[in-house]
């Protein structure tokens, strides 16, 4: 496993390169990059739960919404600045995620998925019903964007892009630290064999709870940034079968339990509909088909395919041995 300083260095270089490339992009391309970066950070933090801990949550669409609405309310009604609203949205979402997790982790497997699906539906319903706070079905308009610092000679779109990329960078590094910690190792133990994990004295409740809260926090941050950049949010962005399902697709297609795979997954699944100029109906269909194809034929996702390809390239010498052996027979 690569070590954290190396990963941090490579990520920082990638971030700088992405920003440099972004300066040359037009507004449409910047918009696609922002979309990718936000969904990639969502997918990375979701991977900590789905890929490392093995629990399929369908409540994360609603948690994303919670972060978005919290950010929106903070920056409008409460009059807070973006830089205060962002962490508050993360913390509020993490808090709610903790409550959800305490309920949901009483179950496992299918029941966990069904229970979080129910919670996701209730959450979405709440965004519609609590129209005094959320604007109901019409949505929440007039959310102030993250202002460009006066000393920076760049326009709003480029700044938004930098923020979205920065969020991805921070989420990715935090996730790397998390999965390498004792808690992360405990999460893997939970995923692999819960009874054995218990027998080895591993605190499984604490591990999976932390994974859920971790993903909740970064989902909240992504939500608040999403709201600020769009200046508008509506419940339709936070449905179980929309965002909640998309997250599963991004992570599985990218490669569960790798953290970098979901970033690729997000790139593929964000770029594809844009490149093909698909109507949204077709893009969801494409998500479904891709998810099915990957879970059937490449359950380790894009990352797994890349790893396998790299392994084949690295081992030409050992490969040569086997034909001779068979030739003798």
């Amino acid at each position, binding site marked *: 496993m690569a070590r954290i300083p190396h990963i941090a260095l490579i990520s920082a270089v990638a971030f700088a390169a992405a920003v440099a490339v972004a300066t040359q992009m037009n507004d449409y391309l910047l918009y696609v990059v922002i979309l990718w970066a936000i969904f990639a950070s969502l997918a990375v933090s979701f991977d900590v739960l789905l890929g490392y801990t093995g629990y*399929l949550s369908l409540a994360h669409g609603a948690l994303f919404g919670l972060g978005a609405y919290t950010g929106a309310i903070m920056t409008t009604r409460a009059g807070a600045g973006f830089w205060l609203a962002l962490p508050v949205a993360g913390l509020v979402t993490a808090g709610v995620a903790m409550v959800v997790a305490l309920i949901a982790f009483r179950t496992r497997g299918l029941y966990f998925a*069904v229970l979080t699906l129910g919670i996701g539906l209730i959450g979405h319903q709440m965004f519609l019903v609590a129209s005094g706070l959320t604007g109901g079905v019409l949505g929440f308009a007039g959310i102030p964007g993250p202002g460009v610092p006066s000393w920076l000679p760049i326009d709003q779109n480029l700044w938004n892009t930098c923020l979205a990329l920065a969020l991805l960078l921070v989420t990715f590094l935090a996730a790397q630290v998390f999965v390498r910690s004792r808690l992360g190792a405990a999460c893997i133990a939970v995923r692999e064999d819960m009874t054995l994990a218990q027998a080895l004295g591993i605190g499984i409740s604490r591990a999976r709870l932390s994974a859920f809260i971790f993903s909740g926090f970064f989902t909240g941050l992504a939500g608040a940034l999403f709201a600020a950049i769009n200046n508008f949010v509506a419940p339709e962005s936070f449905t179980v079968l929309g965002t909640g399902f998309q997250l599963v697709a991004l992570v599985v297609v990218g490669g569960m339990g790798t953290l970098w795979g979901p970033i690729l997954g997000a790139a593929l699944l964000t770029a594809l509909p844009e490149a093909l100029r698909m109507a949204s109906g077709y893009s969801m269909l494409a998500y479904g088909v891709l998810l*099915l194809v990957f879970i059937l034929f490449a359950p380790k996702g894009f990352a797994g395919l890349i790893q396998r390809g790299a392994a084949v390239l690295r081992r030409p010498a050992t490969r040569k041995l086997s034909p001779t052996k068979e030739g003798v027979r």
Partner: protein
Amino acid sequence: MLDLFLQQTVNGLALGSTYALVALGLTLIFGVLLIPNFAHGEFYMVGAFLTYALVMAGLNFWLAMALGALAVIALGCLIDLVAFRPLRGAPPLSLMISALAASIILQQTATLIWTSEARTIPTPVTGVLRTPFFIVTWMQVVVMASLILSVAAIWAILNRTRLGLAIRATAQNHDAALLMGISMVQVRLATFAIGAALGAIAGALLGATFPIYPTMGVNPVLKAFVVLVLGGIGSLRGAVLGGLFLGLVEVMVAGYLSTELQDIGAFTLLVLVLLIRPQGFFGTAQVER
């Protein structure tokens, strides 16, 4: 007062009958094959839309429903073949994800074909039956009668046929059934066929009362999962009783509290049940500390 209560009870039983029909198919597939078929809601949805399309093409409702059910049986077996059978022996998480993908694919395909606009199937039977205590529409009678007929048919298949015996054996012990030479292909086909047919019938019947749209299957399938938890996985009796109970609870909540709370009531019930008995009321409790 009593009249209102009786009336609500009848309405609740009618609503619960459709839940029970959906839950029966879901619990059969899950109980026998251990497949968490999220796409079951889409069997229900496709059943409703095919019935709608055929009725619009001029067919009689009952014929349309039967043809729709046949088509959904074929669809069910196709879904099994494509999405589930290749995953035999894979971890349950893969099955869940695959089911989720199948569900989305069917929903989106239906949206492309029929758009997301809500439609209604013309009710095949109209009029009401008045009794001194309550009023029941003939359609409600049909729904409840369908549940009774379906349960009787499933019971007969499971208990009076060789295939039914094979299905029950598989549900009891999958490996032992294999050792006894039971053909898993037949069992899978039959289980999916029965499950899909039940879903399609429920969809057609409910579509004659309520609007139909491509994501109409989501709530019922989730409620069917609630019913499964209530009634115990794989228990047909549990599915029927749980379905009726859920219908009653929802109608009572809507009648005595508020209509807006109806769905939230069902999901709250789900959360409560899972909190009290994470393995359901009739499921086996697992020791976990």
